[in-house]
């Protein structure tokens, strides 16, 4: 190699395909801004926190008013066990709950369904009927702690349960706060807990958005997840682009049903991932916040500034954790939390260091919570809003990330749009190809991962373990379900389930019928069955190109 060559800077390629310069200056911000459609003259692309287009945060006071909500994901086997963990987390200063459901519940199967065998209570809590969710939330003050549910295809049923629980406790559902994940399009792309065909699934999302807009205005019916798309292999640009296209698909659907954008947009929320290059992620969030504000205002004509807010949970980071040298995951988690805080998130959840090989232990979950608390109490992350704002590099990269996100969105739309792309499997194939490329980059050493393809040490692999799976617990859950089936009024259940099918067939909002069925103690499997009878089931397209 020539001497000249050795003076050249090491090439850098971000996951999104961008190549940062060695150093940035004021001209770079202006130059990269030319890649974006101009803002109206009164708006400033960087501006101030709390000011449209919200590059620097959706609130003017940001964390000086209150730190982000800390919401660790938890859910164990039975409602009683989950209730205990929830109370433990609240006692330790956690400010929100995030309910993990087991796979049968997420797929709409009752615990005694043969297809549920071996999976009841395995990765979360089993919910067969209202009684289970009621017990899980027993003694938890829903006016003080907000509950987020990681549930998608079954989300309308969980919403019906939450409305019923609130009412039974003498709390007006109109005053209930909380969040449903309820983002079905991303389930088709990654994570896979779909039930109904694509169009019917979107219709159900529409039902929840419409119902909340009219009857539960403080509730967030949908949390659009770039997160799982990223965890499925997408790069940060694809994560945001597909997330926004999905959000647009839901918005278009409910607008076609007659809702005005300002009736629902402020209750949409987002869920994004935090692992990877720090600056790329921070720029991703700042770019995303500005782009979403512009989409909602410029494309949808929103007048309420709150409609333009990209309210988000930026958390997790599971994709960055490793089985090798798992203690490093504590360090990674701290940096990921820093990314999230520097990005102005509203809510943070942080994967636990043992999450690469097991369901988090109590100790690991506490370390994650304490990591966030260290940022708040010791590191000054809540002292001033958007502390990286104005950085030549961060602002330039923010512009470049926005341009890239726009480019990917335009390409998907030119190819027929997100709904068509999911229906045909084209989007799934795009993400799968990216995942494969990433894996090859890791194996070739083109992408570096400490403890995995560099700085390995012998005996540094932690064995994987699972939360002890207790098959007797599944039997107890089935016994509980039997008890519900015995005590309820069978005729009332049958009538309520007919009502669910009738509403689905008539293409009216199924929420009131689901609430009737929940109150009659119909099971999740029965309610899903009543919808399936009309909607049918999704058939997965398998393609890789």
């Amino acid at each position: 190699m020539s001497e000249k060559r050795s003076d050249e800077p090491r090439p850098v390629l971000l996951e999104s395909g961008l190549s940062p310069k060695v150093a940035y200056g004021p001209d770079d911000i202006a130059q990269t801004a030319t890649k974006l459609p101009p803002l109206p003259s009164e708006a400033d692309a960087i501006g101030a926190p709390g000011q449209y287009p919200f590059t620097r945060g959706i609130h003017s006071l940001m964390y000086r008013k209150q730190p982000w909500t800390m919401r660790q994901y938890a859910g164990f086997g039975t409602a009683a066990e989950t209730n205990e963990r929830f109370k433990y987390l609240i006692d330790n200063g956690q400010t929100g709950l995030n309910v993990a459901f087991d796979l049968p519940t997420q797929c709409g199967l009752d615990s005694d369904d043969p297809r549920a065998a071996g999976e009841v209570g395995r990765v979360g809590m089993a919910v067969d009927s209202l009684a289970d969710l009621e017990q899980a939330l027993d003694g938890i003050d829903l006016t003080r702690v907000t509950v987020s549910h990681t549930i998608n295809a079954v989300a309308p049923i969980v919403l019906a349960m939450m409305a019923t629980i609130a009412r039974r406790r003498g709390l007006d559902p109109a005053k209930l706060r909380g969040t449903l994940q309820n983002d079905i399009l991303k389930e088709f792309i990654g994570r896979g807990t779909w039930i109904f065909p694509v169009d019917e699934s979107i219709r159900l999302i529409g039902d929840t958005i419409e119902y909340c807009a009219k009857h539960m205005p403080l509730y967030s019916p949908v949390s659009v997840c770039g997160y799982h798309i990223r965890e499925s292999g997408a790069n940060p640009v694809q994560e945001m682009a597909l997330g926004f296209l999905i959000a647009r698909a839901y918005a278009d659907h409910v607008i076609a049903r007659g809702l005005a954008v300002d009736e629902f947009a402020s209750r949409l929320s987002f869920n994004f991932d935090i692992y990877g290059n720090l600056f790329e992620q921070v720029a991703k969030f700042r770019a995303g916040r500005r782009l979403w504000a512009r989409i909602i205002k410029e494309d949808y004509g929103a007048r309420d500034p709150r409609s333009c807010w990209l309210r988000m949970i930026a958390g997790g980071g599971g994709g960055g954790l490793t089985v090798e040298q798992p203690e490093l995951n504590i360090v990674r988690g701290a940096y990921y939390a820093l990314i999230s805080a520097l990005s102005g998130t509203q809510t943070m959840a942080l994967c636990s260091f043992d999450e690469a090989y097991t369901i988090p232990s109590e100790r690991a979950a506490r370390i994650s919570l304490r990591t966030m608390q260290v940022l708040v109490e010791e590191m000054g992350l809540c002292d001033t809003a958007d502390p990286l704002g104005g950085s030549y590099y961060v602002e330039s990269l923010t512009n470049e990330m926005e341009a890239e996100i726009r480019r990917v969105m335009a390409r998907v739309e030119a190819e027929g749009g997100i709904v068509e792309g999911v229906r045909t499997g084209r989007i799934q194939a795009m993400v799968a190809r990216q995942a494969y490329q990433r894996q090859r980059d890791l194996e070739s050493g083109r992408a570096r991962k400490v403890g995995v393809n560099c700085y390995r040490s012998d005996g540094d692999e932690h064995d994987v373990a699972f939360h002890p799976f207790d098959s007797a617990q599944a039997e107890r859950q089935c016994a509980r379900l039997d008890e519900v089936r015995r005590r309820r009024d069978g005729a009332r259940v049958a009538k309520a389930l007919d009502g669910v099918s009738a509403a689905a067939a008539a293409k009216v909002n199924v929420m009131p019928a689901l609430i009737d069925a929940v109150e009659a103690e119909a099971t999740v499997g029965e309610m899903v069955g009543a919808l399936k009878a009309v909607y049918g089931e999704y058939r997965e397209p398998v393609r890789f190109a």
Partner: protein
Amino acid sequence: MRKLRQEASGNSGNTVPIRVLVAKPGLDGHDVGAKVIVQALRDAGMEVIYTGLRQQPAAIARAAVQESVDAVGLSILSGAHLPLCRAVREALAAEQAEGLLLLVGGVIPERDRAPLRELGFTGVFPVGTRLDEVVTFVREHAR
């Protein structure tokens, strides 16, 4: 069955691509690993059929027979690998599909690896396995 096909084609075993069925049994929807393996095996010149999610063991066994594959690979990240592998093994036996190379990948603790091998899953690939390791293993052990 495989042998017949080779003879009919008149080629030596080396030129007929190895056929692999990659399947996701159970309810677990994490399919990144399965889809990455499908692409890696295809790039290595194998013919790969991917079932998609939530396949019942009987359906996996039927697909293995219909597609006359040399190997069946399961991807399981929910922790339910022992009961699911056992069920697939039994379903294959019921279809009289013996002698296939069986593989399983996913979140698999050390102590479960020997029991899985005893069930007939010769290739056990925990998370973190390199793609070329899987490809080489299939090449060496299929047929």
